[in-house]
Structures are given as C-alpha cells and as structure tokens.
C-alpha cells in the first residue's frame, strides 16, 4: 500500500486523498483475502452444523449404536441398510409417503394454478385478493395442524357440525384408516395452495400482453390462447414450484406429528415420521441414521433436479 499509483494519475484531484488507493496487484490479493474472510465464517457454521452431523450420521449408520443403551458402537457395515431396504414396514411407509406427496402436490398445483388464473383475469382488487389467499402459507405448521385437528374433531369439530346441519353423516376424519391420510392431504393442500398460486401468478402476470392481443385479433379461442400462450410460458416456473413443494412434502413431519401421530395404526406414517419413531422411540440410533442417510440421498437427488432446472431457467 505504498508508492505512486497508476490508477490515480488520471485523477489528479484525488492524489491528495487521505487514504492512498491500493496498487492493482495487492488489490487483487486483498480481494481474495476478503472473499475468504467473508465467506469462511458462514461455511464454517454450515460445516459444523450440517455437514459434520451428517458425516457422523453416516458413520453411525454402519454401526449398531443406540443412544440410550450407550456402550461402544460395533461396526455392522451394511446390515442397517439391507435391513431397511428389505423391510416390508419401510416399503409401506414409502408408499404412504408417495401417496401423500403426489396427492398433496397434485391437488395444490391444480387448485393453486386455478386460483392464480382467476385472479390474473381480474382487473380490480388483485392485491387484496392475493394477500388474503396467502395467509395460510405464512402460518406455522404447528398452528395449522392444531387448528385443523380441532376443526376435524369428530365430536366438537366444525366440519362435522356443518355436515350435520346439511343432514349428512359424521366422519371420524383423523381416527379412521381411510380418511386420515386424506385429511392430511387436505390440510397440507389448504396450507400450500397459496404457494403454488403465488408463483403461478408471477408467471401469469409476466406473460407479455401483446401475445394475447395478437391472438385475439386472430380470433383465437380462449382455450387455444390458454393452451398455446399461457401454459407454455407459465409451465417452467410452475414446475419449479412443484419440485419445491415435492421436496418439502417429502420432508414433512410437523403436520403428521400433530394431526395423527402416524395413526390410526400406521396409516399416516410417512418416512420422516417413521425415522423419528425408530430414532427417538425405538432408540435404534444406528438403524435410524442409515434410514436418515437414505432419505438425505433422496432429498439430494430431488434438490439437484430442482437446482439444475432452476439454473436452466435462469440462463434462458
């Protein structure tokens, strides 16, 4: 940081500046130093709180360690993994999770897109409508879960009360095998339809107006316009939303915990709820870790898909 600086020779007025500017070479060096100094604290926190725990889980997944039994961990290599992958119990949970993820995300996508489309066709009150529709999404899953539990309550629930005044029978929403998973899907749909709506609306309002004008001059039918202009232009953004929701739905735990605790029987036990049971009720830490690692692998694949796609979208 000394000596005359070529940069300032063009600006004689700045020579008198109190801080002498750094020469080019050391500037680049200090840039690198700055980058390291600014990035590494954040990365260190992530390494300590995300990467290290996962590596530990990876290690535990090859052992028979139990958090309560204590004692030392013995290597069992892939026993945990084979046990999980061949377990009929786990297959059942995987199926439940699949039904839940596909059902909830599909419902949300259709509903969310429909609402966004309806809102995008309005000229007045859009801001207010959007804000109102977004409320469920901002609530904590705990609040959502608790509240729906009350509304779906067989005895005091308002849903059954309304069904009753319509002359329909009472339904034990959360305590019957057939309806529990459906209830879960409905609640998740209620909470996350606004998410899809929000993103779909962003896509819909970004469609250039002149395309519609051109189409309407050509007397193109509404359906034709929707199919050839709206959908292709909104679809990429919508897919982002769908993938994002799929990852979130796959990770879901809070709602299951509060609404049904996996019951009745195991009818609403998703993979993440099952991991919790293995780890914190069964205390088979080793098995739970292997289970967790397998789930992390699935999430990583989904996330990669999501990020790749996102990247492609940004480059276009």
């Amino acid at each position: 940081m000394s000596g005359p600086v070529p940069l300032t020779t063009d600006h004689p007025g700045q020579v008198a500046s109190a801080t002498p500017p750094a020469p080019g070479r050391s500037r680049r060096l200090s840039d690198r130093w700055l980058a390291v100094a600014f990035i590494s604290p954040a990365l260190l926190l992530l390494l300590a709180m995300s990467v290290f725990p996962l590596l530990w889980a990876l290690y535990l997944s090859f052992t028979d360690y139990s958090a309560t039994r204590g004692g030392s961990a013995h290597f069992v290599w892939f026993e945990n993994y084979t046990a999980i992958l061949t377990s009929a119990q786990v297959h059942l949970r995987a199926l439940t999770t699949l039904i839940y993820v596909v059902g909830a995300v599909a419902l949300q996508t259709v509903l969310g897109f429909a609402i966004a489309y309806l809102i995008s066709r309005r000229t007045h009150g859009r801001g207010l409508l959007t804000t109102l529709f977004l409320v469920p999404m901002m609530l904590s899953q705990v609040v959502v879960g608790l509240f729906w539990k009350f509304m779906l309550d067989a005895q005091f629930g308002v849903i059954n009360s309304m069904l009753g005044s319509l002359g329909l029978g009472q339904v034990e929403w959360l305590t019957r095998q057939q309806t529990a998973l459906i209830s879960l899907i409905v609640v998740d749909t209620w909470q996350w339809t606004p998410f899809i709506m929000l993103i779909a609306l962003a896509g819909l309002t970004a469609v250039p107006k002149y395309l519609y004008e051109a189409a309407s001059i050509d007397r193109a039918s509404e359906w034709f316009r929707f199919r050839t202009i709206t959908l292709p232009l909104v679809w990429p953004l919508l897919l982002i939303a769908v993938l994002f929701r799929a990852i979130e739905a796959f990770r879901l735990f809070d709602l299951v915990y509060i609404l049904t605790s996996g019951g009745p029987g195991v009818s609403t036990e998703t993979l993440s709820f099952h991991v919790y049971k293995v780890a914190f009720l069964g205390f088979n830490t080793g098995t739970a870790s292997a289970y967790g690692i397998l789930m992390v692998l699935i999430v990583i694949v989904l996330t990669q898909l999501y990020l790749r796609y996102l990247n492609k979208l940004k480059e276009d």
Partner: protein
Amino acid sequence: MAVSVDEAVSTGPVRDRTPAARRFGGRGRSVLEIALLTVLAVVMLFPVLWMIETSIKENRDVYAIPAKFFDFTVTLDHFKDVFVASGGGRSTLSVAFLNSVVVAGVSTVLATVLGVPAAWAYSRFSVKAKKDQLFFILSTRFMPPVVVVIPIFLMYRQVGLIDTKLGLILIYAAFNVPFTIWMMKGFVDEVPAEYEDAAMLDGYTRLQAFWKFTLPLLVPGIAATAVFALIFSWNEFVFAIFLTSSDTVRTAPPAIAGLIGGTTVDWGLVAAASVVFALPVLVFAYLVRKHLIAGVTLGAVRR
C-alpha cells in the same frame, strides 16, 4: 408481490376488443369467475376466521353442538390465560413466547451477520467453483430436519447444548445462513459493482467501498431477508421439540403443541395462543410482501 400484481392491470382493453356478440357471454363468465373466487377465498380463510372466533368464545360456546357461528358471547379470557398463569404470575406460554423472541431474534442476527458478507463476496469476487459452493449451501437447507436432528441431538448431548437456547440459536442460524446467502446474493447482484469500482478509484479500499457505498443500498434487502429468517425460526418446530424439554428454554411452537397433550384439550386457549403466535408473522409477512416469492423459495426464484 404487490408490485407485480399492480403492474399488470391492463388486461381490460384486450377483452374489450372481443366482438359485441361475445361480450355478454364474457360478462356472465366474469360474474361466474368472481363467484368462484369468492367461494375459494371463503374456504381458504374460514379456518383462520374460525380460529380467531374460537379464541374469543366462551368455553361453552367453543364446544357447542351444532357450532355457533355468530351468536356467541365475546370474551378475552383465553388471551388472559395465554399470558397470565391461573395462580397469577407469568404463564408457561408467555415464557415460551419470550424464549421464541430471544431464539428467533438472536439466530436471525447471527445468520444475517454471517450471511450478508458471504453473499456480497459470492456476488463480487470470482471464487473457485462458485456455483458448486452455492448449490452445496442451498442443499444443506433442504435436509430433512428429522434426519439432521438425530446426529445434532447426540452432538449436543456431548457438548452440553441439549436443552439450551444457544443450541437452538446455532441450529436455526445454520438453517438460515443458506437462505440469507441466496436471498442476499440476489440483492447484491442488483447493486452495480461499478459503484464500488468508482469508490476505489477515489481511494477507498474494497472493504470501505462495501461498507460506505454498497451496504447502505442493501439495507432494505437485508431487512426483508432478516424478516424471512425471523419467520422461519419463529415457526420452527422439529428442532425445538427434540432439542429442548424444560419450560424455561422451550420456544412457543412446542409449548403450544403441548397444550393438546392432556386428556381434555382447552381449544379456546389453543386458539388464543395460536392467534398470539401467528399475528406477528402475518404482520411481518405483510411488510415484506414485495419479496414474498423470493422469500418462500429460499431466494431461488426472483421476479
């Protein structure tokens, strides 16, 4: 959000150009669409309204069969119960709310302090394998909490962070840093790097240029990002329920969820606690509505 919503209001003229014969059908359809939207809005908002209603009902009205929609006695007893214990003094719930404020607040500050400089560095400098690093950072945010909590639980047990606010603060900060970096990188990208170059020509160092010229321009973005981080930490449940157990440490979500543990559930109290818990989130979300899309997609989608 409001911006993109208000910007695109000019669909009107397009419809006006449709032939007169089709215009009536258009109006009929319009009425139908408004009706449909109203029904959907009512369905979406009913649970929220029902929650608010339950929180101000007297107990006998809460459990009334059939449910009472309009004619009930208004009471604020449930809200009093949220804050004041039955024997006087502070209730467990109010302590939990305070804990939530501390945990969410401190973890947000931590995530912001760590995340904003990193976002700036990623935006301005050529870092080795930048894209991979950024992807890695975001991937950590997608990890299932139920899985991460198993090793974190063991780790915390080793170092004595189980059932401490610090433990929760650290894990929340770790979950918010990826979000902060991605969200803030977008905001930093919007500030021209030329500002800093110009400042450096004037003799400032890179750090000074960042501090004096770029950072003030980032303040609105930082505020929005911090609000989202605050909402995430405030709403978080999984880590809270597994890593804390005592009433003095426990945050609001597990405390509220704990209200339904017993044989009888005081739904009025649950509703009041939920309203108190959700209100700040809704206010905050309203304040950052412009950035909502970026916020809820972890900064990945920007419009």
